[in-house]
């Protein structure tokens, strides 16, 4: 039998089983496939989800993604369904809506904006009984924004709390 080329050995370069490498390869690509499947199943966003809270005065729907990734654009749709007249409908948004997030547009534009205990308060004015107010907000996540954040939304009639939607958003890097 001829000698193998210099620096090669039959044991190391012909008969090596590479079991460890095979195992590492399978585990690595298994994990990659798992991540891809999780992505396809909306684990990493950004399919929107409807969150809902009901009260005698009004129902509040929030339709927005609960999982996002850095840099993504997304929409939040806020629907106030007034059961009785609301003199001054004010939506108060938790920090998860505004912190490290661009607010590109709000339609219809609120008639007033302010801060309530550090949270963004948007005044949409009068909503007659039986009528619906829909506000669309377009956002973009800053690339450095990562983690779980509260995105609770409260609906006030001026300073009286009517109802509250509890939600959390997870932002992946």
């Amino acid at each position: 039998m001829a000698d193998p080329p210099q620096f090669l050995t039959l044991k190391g370069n012909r008969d090596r089983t590479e079991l460890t490498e095979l195992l590492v390869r399978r585990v690595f690509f298994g994990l990659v496939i798992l991540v891809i499947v999780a992505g396809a199943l909306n684990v990493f966003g950004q399919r929107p989800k409807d969150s809902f809270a009901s009260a005698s005065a009004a129902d509040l729907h929030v339709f927005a993604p609960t999982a996002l990734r850095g840099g993504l654009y997304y929409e939040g749709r806020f629907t106030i369904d007034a059961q009785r007249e609301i003199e001054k409908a004010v939506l108060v948004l938790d920090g998860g809506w505004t912190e490290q997030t661009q607010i590109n547009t709000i339609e219809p534009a609120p008639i007033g904006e302010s801060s309530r205990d550090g949270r963004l308060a948007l005044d949409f004015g009068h909503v007659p009984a039986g009528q619906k107010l829909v506000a669309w907000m377009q956002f973009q996540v800053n690339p450095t924004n990562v983690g779980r954040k509260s995105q609770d939304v409260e609906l006030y009639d001026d300073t009286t709390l009517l109802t509250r939607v509890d939600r959390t958003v997870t932002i992946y890097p």
Partner: protein
Amino acid sequence: MDVVARALVAFCFIFLLTRLIGRRELSSLQPFDLILLIVMGDLVQQGVTQNDLSITGLILTIGLFGVLTLGASYVGFRFPRFRPILEPEPLILIEDGNVIERNLKKERMTQKELASEARLQQIDSLEKVKWAVLESGGQISFIPKSS
């Protein structure tokens, strides 16, 4: 800090992916593979720098990639034990005209592909090959029996 962390994750992921994907896939670039590589490069850039258009970001990311490449190369040189982790060992595919099927299977390669590679080196039959070695970089070296 964020851009450095992103670049580090990207480097490790690309390193693992290219290391484990197999050398044959990387060495034989068909037009499709070439386009895929360019697309992958673009996707990596978006994930690493995102909206950072600064010179600082460029220096940080390219600098880190350079340092990590150099580091991996140094570790392989200084500590031979780690070399098989960093780059695959050469694999003997033909010994004295006999094709080692087990090793071909390991690299998901057929005898036809091996013969095609041999023809590129003016060898018309695998039986005339004394040694064929799949090198770390994915190229196949043929040592003919007559030499």
